[in-house]
Protein backbone atom coordinates (compact mmCIF):
# COMPACT_ATOMS: atom_id res chain seq x y z
CA UNK A 1 0.00 0.00 0.00
CA UNK A 2 1.68 3.22 -1.12
CA UNK A 3 1.64 6.04 1.38
CA UNK A 4 -0.43 9.18 0.90
CA UNK A 5 2.65 11.11 -0.02
CA UNK A 6 3.60 8.62 -2.73
CA UNK A 7 0.19 8.80 -4.30
CA UNK A 8 0.21 12.56 -4.19
CA UNK A 9 3.55 12.59 -5.98
CA UNK A 10 2.24 10.19 -8.58
CA UNK A 11 -0.81 12.35 -9.20
CA UNK A 12 1.32 15.41 -9.74
CA UNK A 13 3.59 13.61 -12.15
CA UNK A 14 0.75 12.16 -14.20
CA UNK A 15 -1.03 15.47 -14.44
CA UNK A 16 2.17 17.12 -15.63
CA UNK A 17 2.52 14.49 -18.30
CA UNK A 18 -1.05 15.06 -19.33
CA UNK A 19 -0.37 18.75 -19.69
CA UNK A 20 2.55 18.01 -21.98
CA UNK A 21 0.74 15.51 -24.17
CA UNK A 22 -2.15 17.92 -24.46
CA UNK A 23 0.16 20.72 -25.56
CA UNK A 24 1.87 18.42 -28.06
CA UNK A 25 -1.47 17.52 -29.51
CA UNK A 26 -2.32 21.18 -29.99
CA UNK A 27 1.01 21.87 -31.66
CA UNK A 28 0.58 18.90 -33.96
CA UNK A 29 -2.87 20.16 -34.92
CA UNK A 30 -1.48 23.59 -35.78
CA UNK A 31 1.36 22.12 -37.83
CA UNK A 32 -1.04 19.81 -39.57
CA UNK A 33 -3.05 22.80 -40.73
CA UNK A 34 0.10 24.40 -42.05
CA UNK A 35 1.11 21.27 -43.93
CA UNK A 36 -2.34 21.02 -45.44
CA UNK A 37 -2.08 24.59 -46.60
CA UNK A 38 1.24 23.83 -48.27
CA UNK A 39 -0.38 20.87 -50.02
CA UNK A 40 -3.14 23.15 -51.25
CA UNK A 41 -0.65 25.75 -52.46
CA UNK A 42 1.25 23.18 -54.44
CA UNK A 43 -1.74 21.87 -56.32
CA UNK A 44 -2.10 24.34 -59.22
CA UNK A 45 1.61 24.14 -59.95
CA UNK A 46 1.55 20.35 -59.92
CA UNK A 47 -1.44 20.33 -62.25
CA UNK A 48 0.34 22.52 -64.78
CA UNK A 49 3.44 20.36 -64.75
CA UNK A 50 1.51 17.13 -65.10
CA UNK A 51 -0.48 18.59 -67.98
CA UNK A 52 2.47 19.72 -69.93
CA UNK A 53 4.31 16.47 -69.43
CA UNK A 54 1.41 14.39 -70.62
CA UNK A 55 1.21 16.63 -73.67
CA UNK A 56 4.90 16.52 -74.44
CA UNK A 57 5.74 12.98 -73.48
CA UNK A 58 2.86 11.44 -75.40
CA UNK A 59 5.00 11.34 -78.52
CA UNK A 60 8.25 10.05 -79.83
CA UNK A 61 10.25 12.11 -77.38
CA UNK A 62 9.50 9.46 -74.84
CA UNK A 63 12.49 7.23 -75.44
CA UNK A 64 14.89 10.07 -75.88
CA UNK A 65 14.89 11.57 -72.47
CA UNK A 66 17.23 10.08 -69.87
CA UNK A 67 14.70 10.49 -67.07
CA UNK A 68 12.11 8.54 -69.05
CA UNK A 69 14.42 5.74 -70.10
CA UNK A 70 13.39 2.47 -68.48
CA UNK A 71 16.19 0.04 -67.84
CA UNK A 72 16.23 -3.34 -66.21
CA UNK A 73 16.07 -2.35 -62.54
CA UNK A 74 19.27 -3.84 -61.22
CA UNK A 75 20.55 -1.01 -59.07
CA UNK A 76 17.75 0.57 -57.12
CA UNK A 77 17.42 3.40 -54.68
CA UNK A 78 14.70 3.62 -52.08
CA UNK A 79 13.88 7.01 -50.66
CA UNK A 80 12.39 6.48 -47.21
CA UNK A 81 10.61 9.33 -45.52
CA UNK A 82 10.54 9.22 -41.76
CA UNK A 83 10.30 12.03 -39.23
CA UNK A 84 12.85 13.76 -37.05
CA UNK A 85 10.82 13.32 -33.90
CA UNK A 86 9.07 10.45 -32.23
CA UNK A 87 5.85 10.48 -30.22
CA UNK A 88 3.75 9.72 -33.23
CA UNK A 89 2.65 6.13 -32.81
CA UNK A 90 3.64 3.69 -35.50
CA UNK A 91 4.51 6.36 -38.02
CA UNK A 92 8.22 5.68 -38.33
CA UNK A 93 8.05 2.01 -37.50
CA UNK A 94 5.69 1.42 -40.40
CA UNK A 95 8.02 3.11 -42.86
CA UNK A 96 11.06 1.20 -41.67
CA UNK A 97 9.17 -2.07 -41.76
CA UNK A 98 7.80 -1.43 -45.22
CA UNK A 99 11.24 -0.53 -46.51
CA UNK A 100 12.72 -3.70 -45.07
CA UNK A 101 9.90 -5.74 -46.49
CA UNK A 102 10.46 -4.28 -49.93
CA UNK A 103 14.16 -5.03 -49.76
CA UNK A 104 13.51 -8.60 -48.63
CA UNK A 105 10.96 -9.26 -51.31
CA UNK A 106 12.66 -7.65 -54.26
CA UNK A 107 16.32 -8.22 -53.71
CA UNK A 108 17.48 -11.18 -55.67
CA UNK A 109 18.35 -14.32 -53.73
CA UNK A 110 21.94 -14.41 -54.84
CA UNK A 111 22.42 -10.89 -53.46
CA UNK A 112 21.06 -11.54 -50.02
CA UNK A 113 17.29 -11.16 -50.47
CA UNK A 114 14.57 -13.73 -50.91
CA UNK A 115 13.30 -12.90 -54.40
CA UNK A 116 13.70 -15.70 -56.92
CA UNK A 117 14.37 -14.39 -60.43
CA UNK A 118 12.40 -17.32 -61.86
CA UNK A 119 9.16 -16.38 -60.10
CA UNK A 120 8.79 -12.65 -60.27
CA UNK A 121 8.88 -10.14 -63.08
CA UNK A 122 11.89 -8.25 -61.83
CA UNK A 123 14.46 -8.51 -59.11
CA UNK A 124 17.07 -6.06 -57.97
CA UNK A 125 20.72 -6.80 -57.61
CA UNK A 126 21.48 -4.05 -55.21
CA UNK A 127 19.33 -1.74 -53.17
CA UNK A 128 20.53 1.43 -51.58
CA UNK A 129 18.59 3.60 -49.19
CA UNK A 130 18.27 7.35 -49.02
CA UNK A 131 16.74 8.21 -45.70
CA UNK A 132 14.99 11.41 -44.78
CA UNK A 133 14.33 12.05 -41.12
CA UNK A 134 16.36 11.31 -38.04
CA UNK A 135 14.26 8.37 -36.88
CA UNK A 136 14.81 6.32 -39.99
CA UNK A 137 18.47 7.25 -40.10
CA UNK A 138 18.91 5.94 -36.57
CA UNK A 139 17.05 2.78 -37.43
CA UNK A 140 19.02 1.93 -40.55
CA UNK A 141 22.22 3.19 -38.98
CA UNK A 142 21.89 0.40 -36.43
CA UNK A 143 21.51 -2.16 -39.20
CA UNK A 144 24.73 -2.29 -41.16
CA UNK A 145 23.35 -4.79 -43.66
CA UNK A 146 21.66 -1.88 -45.45
CA UNK A 147 23.63 0.31 -47.78
CA UNK A 148 22.83 3.94 -47.22
CA UNK A 149 23.17 6.16 -50.28
CA UNK A 150 22.68 9.36 -48.37
CA UNK A 151 21.01 10.63 -45.23
CA UNK A 152 19.15 13.87 -45.64
CA UNK A 153 18.99 16.03 -42.58
CA UNK A 154 17.12 19.14 -41.65
CA UNK A 155 14.30 18.56 -44.12
CA UNK A 156 11.64 19.34 -41.55
CA UNK A 157 13.08 22.44 -39.97
CA UNK A 158 11.10 24.55 -42.35
CA UNK A 159 8.49 23.40 -44.82
CA UNK A 160 10.00 24.36 -48.11
CA UNK A 161 10.58 23.37 -51.68
CA UNK A 162 14.31 23.92 -51.68
CA UNK A 163 15.18 20.73 -49.84
CA UNK A 164 13.04 18.68 -52.21
CA UNK A 165 14.87 20.31 -55.08
CA UNK A 166 18.23 19.40 -53.68
CA UNK A 167 17.24 15.76 -53.18
CA UNK A 168 15.63 15.60 -56.60
CA UNK A 169 18.68 16.95 -58.35
CA UNK A 170 21.01 14.52 -56.66
CA UNK A 171 18.83 11.51 -57.27
CA UNK A 172 18.19 12.50 -60.88
CA UNK A 173 21.83 13.02 -61.63
CA UNK A 174 22.64 9.57 -60.20
CA UNK A 175 19.90 8.12 -62.37
CA UNK A 176 21.04 9.86 -65.52
CA UNK A 177 24.61 8.81 -64.84
CA UNK A 178 23.27 5.22 -64.77
CA UNK A 179 24.45 4.70 -61.23
CA UNK A 180 20.82 3.81 -60.55
CA UNK A 181 18.21 2.02 -62.66
CA UNK A 182 15.12 2.91 -60.67
CA UNK A 183 14.12 5.01 -57.69
CA UNK A 184 11.23 4.30 -55.35
CA UNK A 185 9.78 6.31 -52.53
CA UNK A 186 8.35 4.89 -49.33
CA UNK A 187 6.28 7.37 -47.39
CA UNK A 188 3.11 7.84 -45.39
CA UNK A 189 0.26 9.00 -47.54
CA UNK A 190 -2.06 11.42 -45.80
CA UNK A 191 -5.64 10.19 -45.92
CA UNK A 192 -7.14 12.08 -43.03
CA UNK A 193 -6.03 13.41 -39.67
CA UNK A 194 -6.61 10.00 -38.16
CA UNK A 195 -5.46 7.68 -40.89
CA UNK A 196 -2.26 7.31 -42.86
CA UNK A 197 -1.22 4.67 -45.30
CA UNK A 198 2.29 3.60 -46.17
CA UNK A 199 2.81 3.61 -49.91
CA UNK A 200 5.63 2.50 -52.16
CA UNK A 201 5.79 4.63 -55.29
CA UNK A 202 8.01 4.70 -58.31
CA UNK A 203 9.80 8.01 -58.80
CA UNK A 204 12.16 7.18 -61.64
CA UNK A 205 11.94 6.41 -64.49
CA UNK A 206 9.11 8.90 -64.91
CA UNK A 207 5.99 7.26 -66.25
CA UNK A 208 3.73 9.88 -67.82
CA UNK A 209 0.08 9.25 -67.17
CA UNK A 210 -2.67 9.11 -69.76
CA UNK A 211 -1.20 8.32 -73.21
CA UNK A 212 -3.93 8.51 -75.84
CA UNK A 213 -5.99 11.03 -73.97
CA UNK A 214 -3.03 13.35 -73.75
CA UNK A 215 -2.48 13.17 -77.50
CA UNK A 216 -5.92 14.63 -78.10
CA UNK A 217 -5.30 17.38 -75.64
CA UNK A 218 -1.99 18.06 -77.26
CA UNK A 219 -3.59 18.81 -80.61
CA UNK A 220 -5.68 21.58 -79.11
CA UNK A 221 -2.69 23.19 -77.44
CA UNK A 222 -1.40 25.26 -80.25
CA UNK A 223 1.82 26.66 -78.95
CA UNK A 224 5.03 27.55 -80.56
CA UNK A 225 7.73 25.72 -78.72
CA UNK A 226 11.06 27.27 -78.09
CA UNK A 227 13.65 25.83 -78.64
CA UNK A 228 11.51 22.77 -79.47
CA UNK A 229 9.33 20.22 -77.70
CA UNK A 230 12.20 18.04 -76.58
CA UNK A 231 13.96 21.06 -75.18
CA UNK A 232 10.93 22.03 -73.14
CA UNK A 233 10.56 18.47 -71.93
CA UNK A 234 14.20 18.48 -70.83
CA UNK A 235 13.47 21.41 -68.61
CA UNK A 236 10.11 20.28 -67.29
CA UNK A 237 10.89 16.68 -66.36
CA UNK A 238 13.32 17.55 -63.57
CA UNK A 239 10.69 19.93 -62.22
CA UNK A 240 8.27 17.05 -62.19
CA UNK A 241 10.66 14.81 -60.29
CA UNK A 242 11.45 17.48 -57.71
CA UNK A 243 7.79 18.18 -57.36
CA UNK A 244 6.99 14.52 -56.70
CA UNK A 245 9.54 14.49 -53.92
CA UNK A 246 8.10 17.70 -52.53
CA UNK A 247 4.66 16.15 -52.54
CA UNK A 248 5.92 13.07 -50.69
CA UNK A 249 7.58 15.30 -48.10
CA UNK A 250 4.39 17.29 -47.58
CA UNK A 251 2.26 14.18 -47.36
CA UNK A 252 4.70 12.75 -44.88
CA UNK A 253 4.65 15.87 -42.73
CA UNK A 254 0.87 15.99 -42.72
CA UNK A 255 0.75 12.29 -41.85
CA UNK A 256 3.29 12.70 -39.10
CA UNK A 257 1.28 15.47 -37.53
CA UNK A 258 -1.90 13.47 -37.87
CA UNK A 259 -0.27 10.43 -36.30
CA UNK A 260 1.12 12.53 -33.49
CA UNK A 261 -2.25 14.12 -32.86
CA UNK A 262 -3.84 10.71 -32.50
CA UNK A 263 -1.04 9.36 -30.34
CA UNK A 264 -1.08 12.38 -28.07
CA UNK A 265 -4.83 12.34 -27.83
CA UNK A 266 -4.67 8.75 -26.64
CA UNK A 267 -1.92 9.58 -24.21
CA UNK A 268 -3.94 12.45 -22.78
CA UNK A 269 -6.96 10.22 -22.39
CA UNK A 270 -4.92 7.52 -20.70
CA UNK A 271 -3.42 10.06 -18.36
CA UNK A 272 -6.91 11.29 -17.45
CA UNK A 273 -8.07 7.76 -16.74
CA UNK A 274 -5.03 7.13 -14.61
CA UNK A 275 -5.57 10.37 -12.73
CA UNK A 276 -9.11 9.29 -11.95
CA UNK A 277 -7.90 5.98 -10.56
CA UNK A 278 -5.14 7.59 -8.55
CA UNK A 279 -7.46 10.21 -7.09
CA UNK A 280 -9.84 7.48 -5.99
CA UNK A 281 -6.99 5.56 -4.45
CA UNK A 282 -5.76 8.69 -2.75
CA UNK A 283 -9.13 9.49 -1.23
CA UNK A 284 -9.56 5.94 -0.03
CA UNK A 285 -6.15 5.98 1.57
CA UNK A 286 -6.88 9.33 3.16
CA UNK A 287 -10.17 8.10 4.60
CA UNK A 288 -8.55 4.93 5.85
CA UNK A 289 -5.92 7.01 7.58
CA UNK A 290 -8.56 9.24 9.20
CA UNK A 291 -10.57 6.26 10.35
CA UNK A 292 -7.47 4.69 11.76
CA UNK A 293 -6.60 7.83 13.67
CA UNK A 294 -10.15 8.12 15.03
CA UNK A 295 -10.06 4.53 16.20
CA UNK A 296 -6.81 5.22 17.95
CA UNK A 297 -8.22 8.26 19.71
CA UNK A 298 -11.37 6.47 20.76
CA UNK A 299 -9.34 3.49 21.90
CA UNK A 300 -7.07 5.77 23.91
CA UNK A 301 -10.04 7.51 25.57
CA UNK A 302 -11.62 4.16 26.46
CA UNK A 303 -8.41 3.03 28.02
CA UNK A 304 -8.16 6.18 30.15
CA UNK A 305 -11.76 5.84 31.28
CA UNK A 306 -11.28 2.22 32.24
Amino acid sequence: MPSLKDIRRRIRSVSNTRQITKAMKMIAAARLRKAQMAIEARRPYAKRIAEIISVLAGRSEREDHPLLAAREPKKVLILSLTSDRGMCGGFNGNICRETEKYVRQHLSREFGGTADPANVAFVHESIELAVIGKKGQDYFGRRPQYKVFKNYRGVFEKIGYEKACEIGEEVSSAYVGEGLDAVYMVYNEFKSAISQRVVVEKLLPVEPEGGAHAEEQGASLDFEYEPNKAGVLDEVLPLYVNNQIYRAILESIASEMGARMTAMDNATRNASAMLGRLTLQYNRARQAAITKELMEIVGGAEALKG
Partner: protein
Amino acid sequence: MTPEGRKLSEPVKEVTTPGALGELGVLPGHIPILTVLDIGALTYLPAKGGGPRQLAVGGGYLEVDRDRLVVITESAEFKEDIDAERARKAKGDATKKLDGLDSGDAQFDLLAKRRKRAKVRLQVASS
Protein backbone atom coordinates in the same frame (compact mmCIF):
# COMPACT_ATOMS: atom_id res chain seq x y z
CA MET B 1 3.53 30.04 -60.07
CA THR B 2 5.81 28.09 -57.76
CA PRO B 3 5.37 24.86 -55.80
CA GLU B 4 4.91 26.94 -52.69
CA GLY B 5 1.97 28.75 -54.13
CA ARG B 6 1.13 31.62 -56.43
CA LYS B 7 3.76 34.26 -56.01
CA LEU B 8 2.21 36.95 -58.06
CA SER B 9 -0.85 37.53 -60.15
CA GLU B 10 -1.44 40.98 -61.52
CA PRO B 11 -1.94 42.85 -64.79
CA VAL B 12 1.34 43.78 -66.44
CA LYS B 13 2.32 45.91 -69.42
CA GLU B 14 5.53 44.20 -70.34
CA VAL B 15 7.67 41.31 -69.18
CA THR B 16 11.29 40.57 -69.90
CA THR B 17 12.31 37.02 -69.13
CA PRO B 18 15.57 35.09 -69.09
CA GLY B 19 14.76 32.73 -71.95
CA ALA B 20 16.93 29.73 -72.64
CA LEU B 21 17.92 31.22 -76.00
CA GLY B 22 18.60 34.65 -74.66
CA GLU B 23 16.47 37.36 -73.20
CA LEU B 24 12.86 37.35 -74.26
CA GLY B 25 10.58 40.34 -74.02
CA VAL B 26 6.82 39.81 -74.10
CA LEU B 27 4.23 42.48 -74.85
CA PRO B 28 0.45 42.05 -74.92
CA GLY B 29 -0.77 40.22 -78.02
CA HIS B 30 2.28 38.04 -78.35
CA ILE B 31 1.74 34.81 -80.30
CA PRO B 32 1.11 31.73 -78.13
CA ILE B 33 4.48 30.40 -77.15
CA LEU B 34 5.84 27.91 -74.70
CA THR B 35 9.44 28.29 -73.84
CA VAL B 36 12.10 27.22 -71.43
CA LEU B 37 13.34 29.69 -68.87
CA ASP B 38 16.89 29.96 -67.72
CA ILE B 39 17.91 30.79 -64.19
CA GLY B 40 17.93 34.54 -64.18
CA ALA B 41 16.21 37.80 -63.45
CA LEU B 42 12.69 38.48 -64.69
CA THR B 43 11.62 42.09 -65.03
CA TYR B 44 8.08 43.32 -65.44
CA LEU B 45 6.21 46.58 -65.66
CA PRO B 46 3.05 46.63 -63.54
CA ALA B 47 0.01 47.91 -65.43
CA LYS B 48 -1.02 50.06 -62.52
CA GLY B 49 2.07 52.18 -63.00
CA GLY B 50 5.29 52.56 -61.12
CA GLY B 51 8.73 51.42 -62.03
CA PRO B 52 9.82 48.00 -63.23
CA ARG B 53 10.10 45.22 -60.66
CA GLN B 54 12.53 42.38 -60.66
CA LEU B 55 12.24 38.74 -59.59
CA ALA B 56 14.95 36.13 -59.36
CA VAL B 57 13.57 32.98 -61.00
CA GLY B 58 15.08 29.53 -60.82
CA GLY B 59 14.42 28.03 -64.23
CA GLY B 60 11.18 26.48 -65.38
CA TYR B 61 9.05 27.46 -68.33
CA LEU B 62 6.89 30.22 -69.65
CA GLU B 63 3.52 30.03 -71.28
CA VAL B 64 2.12 32.92 -73.30
CA ASP B 65 -1.42 32.64 -74.54
CA ARG B 66 -2.74 35.83 -76.09
CA ASP B 67 -3.20 38.13 -73.10
CA ARG B 68 -2.01 35.77 -70.44
CA LEU B 69 1.48 34.96 -69.38
CA VAL B 70 2.20 32.15 -66.95
CA VAL B 71 5.60 31.51 -65.47
CA ILE B 72 6.08 28.09 -63.94
CA THR B 73 9.23 28.07 -61.90
CA GLU B 74 10.78 26.39 -58.90
CA SER B 75 11.52 29.64 -57.15
CA ALA B 76 10.59 33.28 -57.58
CA GLU B 77 11.88 35.88 -55.21
CA PHE B 78 11.71 39.64 -54.99
CA LYS B 79 14.68 41.57 -53.78
CA GLU B 80 13.30 41.63 -50.25
CA ASP B 81 12.75 37.85 -50.16
CA ILE B 82 16.37 37.04 -50.77
CA ASP B 83 18.75 36.08 -48.04
CA ALA B 84 21.89 37.59 -49.52
CA GLU B 85 24.14 36.11 -46.87
CA ARG B 86 22.98 32.60 -47.69
CA ALA B 87 23.27 33.14 -51.41
CA ARG B 88 26.82 34.39 -50.99
CA LYS B 89 27.70 31.32 -48.97
CA ALA B 90 26.04 28.98 -51.49
CA LYS B 91 27.95 30.63 -54.29
CA GLY B 92 31.23 30.26 -52.45
CA ASP B 93 30.57 26.60 -51.66
CA ALA B 94 29.60 25.71 -55.20
CA THR B 95 32.56 27.56 -56.66
CA LYS B 96 34.95 25.78 -54.36
CA LYS B 97 33.57 22.37 -55.27
CA LEU B 98 33.52 23.22 -58.97
CA ASP B 99 37.20 24.04 -58.96
CA GLY B 100 38.09 20.45 -58.23
CA LEU B 101 35.93 18.99 -60.99
CA ASP B 102 36.11 18.82 -64.74
CA SER B 103 33.09 19.38 -66.91
CA GLY B 104 32.51 15.67 -67.54
CA ASP B 105 31.72 14.94 -63.92
CA ALA B 106 28.15 14.02 -63.02
CA GLN B 107 28.17 16.58 -60.24
CA PHE B 108 29.39 19.37 -62.47
CA ASP B 109 26.09 20.46 -63.99
CA LEU B 110 24.36 20.28 -60.67
CA LEU B 111 26.91 22.49 -58.98
CA ALA B 112 27.10 24.90 -61.88
CA LYS B 113 23.34 25.31 -61.61
CA ARG B 114 23.57 25.98 -57.92
CA ARG B 115 26.23 28.57 -58.46
CA LYS B 116 24.22 30.30 -61.12
CA ARG B 117 21.15 30.41 -58.93
CA ALA B 118 23.13 32.00 -56.12
CA LYS B 119 24.66 34.49 -58.52
CA VAL B 120 21.29 35.61 -59.82
CA ARG B 121 19.97 35.99 -56.30
CA LEU B 122 22.86 38.21 -55.39
CA GLN B 123 22.40 40.24 -58.52
CA VAL B 124 18.71 40.83 -57.85
CA ALA B 125 19.33 41.50 -54.17
CA SER B 126 21.82 44.21 -54.94
CA SER B 127 19.84 45.89 -57.70
